[in-house]
């Protein structure tokens, strides 16, 4: 199995799960130019990030090009240790990735 592009750590404390995730992705805006050739580097960025907690959607983000490369995201929701969380992203080229993990 290829190495996942997503790294997630979810921790529960007092009934609240704090999820921190890192996605490895270039997040090209389409405005940058290649310094050698002078050609524009085509846009390649994540448009949507979804998170499911025990099968129910807790967060769905719509992203523009202004999110930094290798995006970091963190958010909180009600939950407990042992719950499953599923994070997935999709970019403007139709690529996507999903990761499922357990809350610690």
């Amino acid at each position, binding site marked *: 199995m290829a190495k996942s592009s997503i790294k997630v750590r979810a921790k529960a404390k007092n009934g*609240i799960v704090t999820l921190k995730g890192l996605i490895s992705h270039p997040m090209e805006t389409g405005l940058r130019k290649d310094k050698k050739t002078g050609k524009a580097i085509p846009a390649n960025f994540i448009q949507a990030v979804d998170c499911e907690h025990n099968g129910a959607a807790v967060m769905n*983000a*719509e992203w*523009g090009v*202004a999110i930094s490369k290798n995006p970091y995201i963190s958010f909180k929701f009600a939950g407990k240790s042992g719950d499953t969380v599923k994070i997935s992203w999709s970019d403007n080229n139709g690529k996507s990735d999903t990761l499922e993990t357990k809350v610690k």
Partner: protein
Amino acid sequence: MQRRHFLKNTMATGAAVLAASSGLLVPGQVLAAYNQAAFDAKDVPSAIKGALGSDSAEASDKIKIKAPDIAENGAVVPVTISSTLGDVKSITLISEKNGTPLVAKFNLGAGSEAYVSTRIKMGKTSNIIAICESGGKLYKAHKEVKVTIGGCGG
């Protein structure tokens, strides 16, 4: 014979499950259709309007934006938004002077706290605006971030 049936059946079910899951995926993607117009908007009011349907937001001190006063590198500006407003449905993040101001919109489901943290790119010194959707109304807050090196060029 029985084995053959079994194989045939499992294969058929497998195909059906595959079809169902891909079928399920398609409407999901349609539902969450990318809001191209809002993300392409060049000025703040039309970006807000495109993302949230209205650009009349009330200033609120219940929204907290945590971001550096001075960002040395505009390509990576950590921003955390939290709010004590109840029942926050979405948090929208805008960087006023970016070419396309709309940065991101976080739709929060039931049970989610009004809290998001991420890292954004900023072209130059400007205000970060956070808009929270709560109880059918929009609330906003802003914070200025000084950028020494822009994050939108090469």
